[in-house]
């Protein structure tokens, strides 16, 4: 009887520990993320500007002041104060893949990057040969 009770107790401890470990992993994986949905924009022809409505969403480990911007651009698309999560609708238009990043304003450090890839249906233009009449 004693042994059975002890086994149930140990088993419960293991379950709780397992749950705790699982929660910790989940928290770690969700600690800091930046998503673009959709993360691909398809234009008809190569070289053309691609247009898409993109939903950018993010999640940080701590509450703070964060801004979203394109990599290598100084202007911010949107900023949030005292927030741990956020999202913004963005009208994407670009001729090539663009990387977005979430910046921690207090440190100026880019925390996470998410690309929006640009591709085309008609990928290659046939190379035209120009030749002289005379």
């Amino acid at each position: 009887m004693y042994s059975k009770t002890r086994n149930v107790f140990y088993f419960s401890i293991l379950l709780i520990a397992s749950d705790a470990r699982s929660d910790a992993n989940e928290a770690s994986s969700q600690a800091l993320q930046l998503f673009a949905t959709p993360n691909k924009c398809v234009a008809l022809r190569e070289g053309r500007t691609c247009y898409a409505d993109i939903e950018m969403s993010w999640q940080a480990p701590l509450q703070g002041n964060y801004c979203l911007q394109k990599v290598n651009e100084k202007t911010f698309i949107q900023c949030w104060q005292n927030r741990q999560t956020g999202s913004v609708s963005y009208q994407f238009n670009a001729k090539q893949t663009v990387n977005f990043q979430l910046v921690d304003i207090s440190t100026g450090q880019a925390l996470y990057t998410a690309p929006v890839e640009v591709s085309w249906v008609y990928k290659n233009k046939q190379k035209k040969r120009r030749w002289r009449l005379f």
Partner: protein
Amino acid sequence: MQFAAKLILLLSLLLACQQAVASNRFYADNQLEPTDGFAWDWSFGAGYYIDKHYLAGVEYDDGLELDVNIALSYDRFYLDIDNSQLSGGFIIGYNLVDQYNWSLDIISTDIQDGFNEEGPFYNNKKPVDELAGITERKGDFAAGLRLSRRFDDTQISFELLHDISKSHQSYLASGFVSTIVDWQNWEFRFGTGYHIYSSDFTNYYYGVSEQEATDVRPIYQPSQSFGLLFEFHSEYPISEDWVFLNGLLVNWYSSEVTDSPIVDDDMQIKAKIGVRYVF
């Protein structure tokens, strides 16, 4: 046509693949120009069409159709089979001059569809009482010169062709203006053209001979006629491989055609909606 299909297959098997862009001779981005060596691409698609023909007794026709589009070029030779745009068709050509946005080409292409007493060959709603007893009009295949000039996304072209098949065996001249407009991820194509059909052409397709004449179908011998066309075509990328497309083609005909006893409308309208898979 069967020979051309075999030629395409043979070239496809023998030569390495190099991706090109499907083309249509009406538009400024057509690739029917000199290239370095061999280039080709192909695509296939499916769509739903609706067609109001101008022939007497031919009602609205609609249905599903499968399209295969092939563009081949080797140096100055090219072949283009475009079934996705309503103005498309079969064209084989040779570029004589390509200079300062001007092009002069020798081309051969099909201009006019044939028909018989059951209406156009693709007509699904048979029989057609109004055409009963007429002799078959064969589709043509014409060859000649095409002169074109590009201005960015706009193109003007003129064609002077002569039928080399056993149909009307006469001349026809055409002029076209087309432009391509982008908006967001859409591509819109607008084209308009003017045809001058010889009296032999008009008489072959729309004349009524003594043998064909009945009490309600008098003998008819028209002279030279004219036609005006307008095309709208748009495409939108669904994914990296699939394109959504739709189009509208309207052909108006002059009184020499519409006065014919076997014609009951002054215009033909064809509309299409579909998809295309691009390799």
